[in-house]
């Protein structure tokens, strides 16, 4: 129902720039997730879309209509807050009916919308309760119900699961995914700092950093082809290992000799002839690391600690103080790897190469 276009959108508080030159096209029916480290402005961007923060520069349109100065209630958006933001003095029914009452809808229309939403969210028997008599998960469902009854073009979620406990978070995440399934035409923007939520819910993820967009793409694009060291380390857990080295062979494939251990490893990323001898960093995800005996390897080190999780074992290699240890992940139980010196390698398609923080793949 709605295409959102942000063109050169910026936000500043006085002299302080928070967001610069945000360009983003969101198509109808997408579920876009904003992620980024805390303070990167993801919530601010969402609140600008909502109309709760003024847009300092650029234009923001919904369905071709410029929304910069349109009041929040007329933008066709609904928002679900981290703290639920339910009206504590109103029953669940009145909470959901509030917007419709203001819009002057008839009683029959309101009842139909409220009952429909309550049905969808399994809130029927709680309609006459006050929010304080509900559990956290139920409150969040009421908050979602309050958004649904308005039948908005765009749903905005501001870290909606952060206040729930771990089990409830998973359950509610699945409910949101199902909700999206039921409403394929509605556009959703979802802010979170939890990358599991981002990976599982998003049709596209927007990674925000340094006052701007670092990368936009589907979850797997970001996972498999991050465009920068920042995105590479931000997506995925434990984070991607970065190993300093030097390009020794260029072409359709790139061969890098790493500093630690002196082995060489091949990446599927292409490189130019003038990359020869360039200082780069090789990125390998812990789950892509394999133990090897061959002379082709990326890293050699002594395992300091192992963490056996049953399905996998995490290997933490010894690292100089102040540096992140290289981490490997092996399927199965390998507790006896501790104190062993291991050679780690990875298949060429899983090896990322970053020159000056930028992926060779995207040059």
């Amino acid at each position: 129902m709605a295409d959102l276009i942000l063109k050169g959108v910026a936000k500043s508080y006085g002299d302080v720039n928070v967001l610069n030159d945000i360009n983003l096209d969101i198509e109808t029916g997408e579920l876009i997730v904003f992620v980024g480290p805390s303070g990167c402005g993801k919530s601010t961007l969402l609140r600008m879309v909502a109309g709760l923060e003024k847009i300092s520069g650029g234009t923001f349109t919904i369905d071709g209509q410029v929304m910069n100065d349109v009041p929040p209630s007329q933008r066709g958006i609904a928002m679900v807050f981290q703290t639920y933001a339910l009206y504590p003095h109103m029953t669940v029914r009145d909470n959901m009916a509030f917007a419709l009452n203001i819009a002057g809808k008839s009683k029959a229309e309101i009842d139909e919308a409220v009952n429909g939403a309550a049905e969808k969210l399994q809130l029927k028997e709680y309609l006459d309760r006050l929010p304080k008599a509900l559990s956290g998960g139920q409150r969040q469902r009421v908050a979602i119900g309050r958004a649904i009854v308005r039948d908005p073009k765009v749903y905005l979620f501001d870290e909606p699961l952060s206040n729930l406990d771990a089990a409830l978070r998973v359950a509610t995440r699945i409910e949101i995914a199902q909700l999206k399934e039921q409403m394929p035409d509605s556009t959703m923007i979802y802010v979170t700092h939890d990358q599991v939520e981002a990976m599982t819910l998003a049709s596209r993820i927007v990674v925000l950093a340094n006052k701007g967009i670092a990368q936009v793409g589907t979850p797997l694009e970001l996972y498999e082809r991050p465009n920068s060291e920042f995105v590479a380390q931000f997506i995925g857990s434990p984070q991607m290992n970065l190993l300093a080295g030097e390009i020794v062979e260029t072409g359709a494939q790139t061969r890098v000799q790493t500093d630690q251990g002196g082995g060489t490893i091949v990446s599927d990323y292409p490189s130019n002839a003038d990359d020869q001898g360039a200082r780069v960093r090789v990125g390998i995800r812990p789950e892509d690391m394999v133990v090897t005996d061959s002379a082709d390897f990326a890293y050699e080190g002594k395992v300091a600690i192992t963490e056996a999780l049953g399905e996998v074992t995490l290997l933490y290699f010894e690292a100089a103080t102040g540096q992140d240890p290289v981490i490997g992940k092996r399927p199965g139980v390998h507790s006896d790897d501790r104190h062993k010196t291991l050679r780690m390698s990875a298949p060429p398609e899983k090896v990322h190469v970053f020159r000056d923080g930028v992926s060779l793949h995207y040059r």
Partner: protein
Amino acid sequence: MSPLVQGAITIFVGVFGCVGYFYAANLLLDKVIYPAKGPNIGRNINRANAIRPWLFLLPAILALSIYLVYPVIGSLIRSMYNRAGNEFIGLGNYTSLAGDPEFQTALINNALWALVVPAAATFFGLVVAQLTDRLSWGNIAKSLIFMPMAISFVGASLIWKFVYAGDPDIGIINAIRDGMGLDPLDPLQLPFWNNFFLMVILVWIQTGFAMVILSAALRGVPEDTIEAAIIDGAGPFRVFFRIKVPQIMGTIVVVWTTITILVLKVFDIVYTMTGGNFGTEILPSYMMSFMFRDDGRATAVAVVIMIVVLPVMIWNIRQAQKEMR
């Protein structure tokens, strides 16, 4: 001895007397009566801890009993005696009160005061709290509005005597009337309305109190609920009356009842402005008019005031406790 020195000594003795009492009593309990050593150490510590709160409360309980409970009971008894205090007349004072038209006027006026002043002060306080929060110079406005709180009732009454003065060169009301070519009048002698002119003074004083408490409460309303309401399409008025006010209802009730209790005790304003004449009598000023002339009757009025205040007070305390939870 100069009263200044006397006062300083009183403060010194009072403050350090309290500190000394708590310190010594605590020491006595822990070291002498139930020492935390010996074969019964566990029992001793438990007993000392059970007694300690009572030890600390003792001075307050004693002071309250002597200066509050005893006078209340004494007043109840005294109100059953005649003017001279030597003859028991049962409810005689009360029946004669009930028959006194002046008492009835005072009762009705008091009811009016109790309705109008808290309502007006709370309403203005709420409006001022909301509006000043949105102004850059709001804090200056707040200090100005709060200032009357620091003036004694008699002082405030004297200020308002000027406002109501009959001379158009002094009183603003008559200045306005003069400007419109009307004859000066004394607002305080207008039957019925003069009550409201007196109430204005107390509203003027108490609005600051209501404003301060309600302003704090308004700031406690979660910003999210307000933003949610804005997204839901609520305008400023709706946000204020449907979202903010209901969420601070508990505080509003506490402010309201606190002012109500105060209203039922204030006599200074009436006493200073009209002396209870021109149909402006209220219960406390009515009581004053009997004090030292007929103590039996005066205490009977005091008891009536207490009975009227009591339920409001209980409600107030309940609400305040609920707020704290």
